[in-house]
């Protein structure tokens, strides 16, 4: 049994995760940058990711109140803070949570021996994605009740959330067509481990002055929660069996779907280039372990007339009341259905325009040293993700610097739904074939992580053949 306080902690765990990977995007020394643009530039002949360590991504954000707003130990009454958080947020505020863990990955270049201009990359990763919009009207109803809200229409579509855990099997193909253009495509098979979504709710509840009695309470409900992979998991008592179920679903035993990513990069001049990608154009068809709940119906309650119920029909007051009780039960009882359903993956768009400058100069001519090209780069990146209510958009400017042969840095400044002052920093270390990269954003918020509107971390180890 979950205590409501625990639930409240989870509910107000407003530090959570988004999906923008603005630092790794275009960071072509890192093989995993091909996951955000399959048509990106390839800088290696091949690579192998360290299993389970090659790409760990957590990315956190809230567009509404932060944990610190609600849980600060500042002597202010908790309920006051909770309520002001609830009042300050709108139904478009959200928490999202995104986590990715690469199980394994690798890639190799191929083509004619003198010009290996094609590249194949592949792997498996697990991804968790949650978005939960703040159910404002439900919160107001729970906090205030309807007494001070006569005639206020409570919008039941404010309940809007989706949660999915998937494993993704992917193979990507990248081709450098000529010195200007590269393109790539990545095919994906999704195996959904668990899905819960409630994104198409409609309806309202309103209390209005009545004709026969003081109030009419008008219910118009069209609510649904669809789940797959949850019921059998909840019903299973043994943790060994649960683990077996998960393992099976990770390995394509879940609800399956298909999708693809596409991308390109184009050198406009020697110094300017443009790139872009569309990720997760795909769907999952849920047919196994599906259980959905629907609450649907219209009803107006005006109280009961106990003394003179339908005199003609000789109906007693209790018959009449029982009828009302049945109507209510029918209205609010969730119908359990097991119809198959399809969910679309959240499509992501990345695009950027970039300018490289500053060639490395040698004091003396060194004809043996390789030409590494420009060592600085600046650019503007746009990111958008399709979400149940509306797309979320982020705009990033960045500065990239090749500091040593073994160290490349990228600093970013991002404006998004979470904040206007998001500074990010990423580094990729290369020692021999070993590659380690780490990146994080919202640096200035780390002074108080609980007050962060968004934090993001990515790191990984690879072995790269150059």
């Amino acid at each position, binding site marked *: 049994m979950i205590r409501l306080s625990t639930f409240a902690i989870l509910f107000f765990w407003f530090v959570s995760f988004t999906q923008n990977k603005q630092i790794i995007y275009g960071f072509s020394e890192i093989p995993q940058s091909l996951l955000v643009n399959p048509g990106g530039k390839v800088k290696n002949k091949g690579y192998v990711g360290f299993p389970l360590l090659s790409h760990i991504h957590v990315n956190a954000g809230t567009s509404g109140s932060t944990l610190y707003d609600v849980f600060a130990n500042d002597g202010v009454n908790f309920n006051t803070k909770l309520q002001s958080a609830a009042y300050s947020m709108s139904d478009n505020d959200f928490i999202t949570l995104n986590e990715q863990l690469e199980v394994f990955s690798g890639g190799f270049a191929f083509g004619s021996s003198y010009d290996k201009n094609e590249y194949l990359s592949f792997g498996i990763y697990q991804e968790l994605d949650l978005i939960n919009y703040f159910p404002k009207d439900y919160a107001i109803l729970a906090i205030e009740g*309807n*007494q001070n809200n006569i005639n206020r229409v409570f919008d039941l579509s404010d309940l809007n959330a989706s949660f999915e855990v998937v494993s993704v099997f992917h193979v990507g193909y990248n081709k450098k067509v000529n010195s200007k253009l590269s393109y790539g495509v990545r095919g994906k098979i999704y195996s959904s481990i668990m899905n819960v979504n409630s994104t198409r709710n409609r309806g309202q509840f309103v209390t209005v002055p*009545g004709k026969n009695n003081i109030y009419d309470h008008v219910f118009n409900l069209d609510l649904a929660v669809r789940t797959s992979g949850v019921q059998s998991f909840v019903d299973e008592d043994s943790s060994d069996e649960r683990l077996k179920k998960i393992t099976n679903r990770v390995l394509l035993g879940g609800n399956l779907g298909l999708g693809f990513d596409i991308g390109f990069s184009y050198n406009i001049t020697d110094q300017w280039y443009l790139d872009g990608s569309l990720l997760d154009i795909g769907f999952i068809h849920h047919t196994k372990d599906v259980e959905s709940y629907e609450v649907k119906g219209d009803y107006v309650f005006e109280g009961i007339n106990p003394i*003179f119920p339908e005199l003609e029909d000789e109906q007693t007051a209790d018959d009449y009341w029982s009828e009302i009780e049945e109507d209510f039960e029918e209205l609010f009882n969730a119908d359990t259905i097991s119809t198959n359903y399809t969910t679309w993956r959240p499509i992501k768009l990345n695009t950027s325009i970039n300018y490289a400058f500053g060639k490395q100069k040698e004091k003396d001519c060194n004809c043996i040293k390789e030409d590494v090209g420009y060592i600085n780069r600046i650019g503007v990146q746009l990111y958008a993700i399709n979400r149940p209510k509306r797309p979320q958009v982020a705009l990033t400017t960045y500065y990239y610097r090749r500091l040593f042969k073994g160290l490349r840095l990228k600093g970013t400044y991002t404006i998004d739904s979470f904040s206007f002052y998001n500074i990010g920093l990423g580094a990729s270390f290369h020692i021999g074939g070993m590659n380690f990269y780490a990146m994080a954003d919202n640096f200035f918020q780390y002074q108080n992580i609980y007050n962060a509107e968004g934090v993001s971390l990515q790191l990984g180890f690879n072995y790269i053949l150059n």
Partner: protein
Amino acid sequence: MHLSPKYVILFFLLLTLCISCTKDIDFDQAREYQFNPVVESSLVFFNESANAFIDQGAEVEIVQDFIFIDFFNDDFIVDNVEKISFNFETQNSINRRFELQVDLYDEALGLQDSFVVIQEASSDGQNEIASHVEVFEDERLVALKNTHIILFTLRLLPGPNIDETTSGRIELKSKAVFYFEIKDVAL
């Protein structure tokens, strides 16, 4: 370009910024949460002309009926409601005083509570208006939460006879006001 170690130092300084700090946070506060919504719901009503009190030509002075109701002993109500009030608004344009007696019984038909809503007669055919409030707190609230059967008795008190020609109506509207105190609720 000659790369000075100062870049490296600067970089690691920046990285140390990454070490996250926290300010004082107390998650135990969640136990203190409390919602106090006030919910109003329509309750009983009637609106009848004088003729409704005539059955086969004779005046009916008492109308009585009951309902079985599990609402007030629902766990959520029992655990989270601190106070309930019943607010009645009555109107009368018949020259007879009427009263609505409400008796609350538990499952074993033990009388838990009883109250009467009175509306004076209208001597001149104009609407007489009254309001009445019953507040259930403490012991009375416990009695209400034990209620499974409500018996309604509507009485016309003695006065001029009612026949087919008597004009006027009696009307009653009411609402219940639930004062919740929602604390640590088990889901």
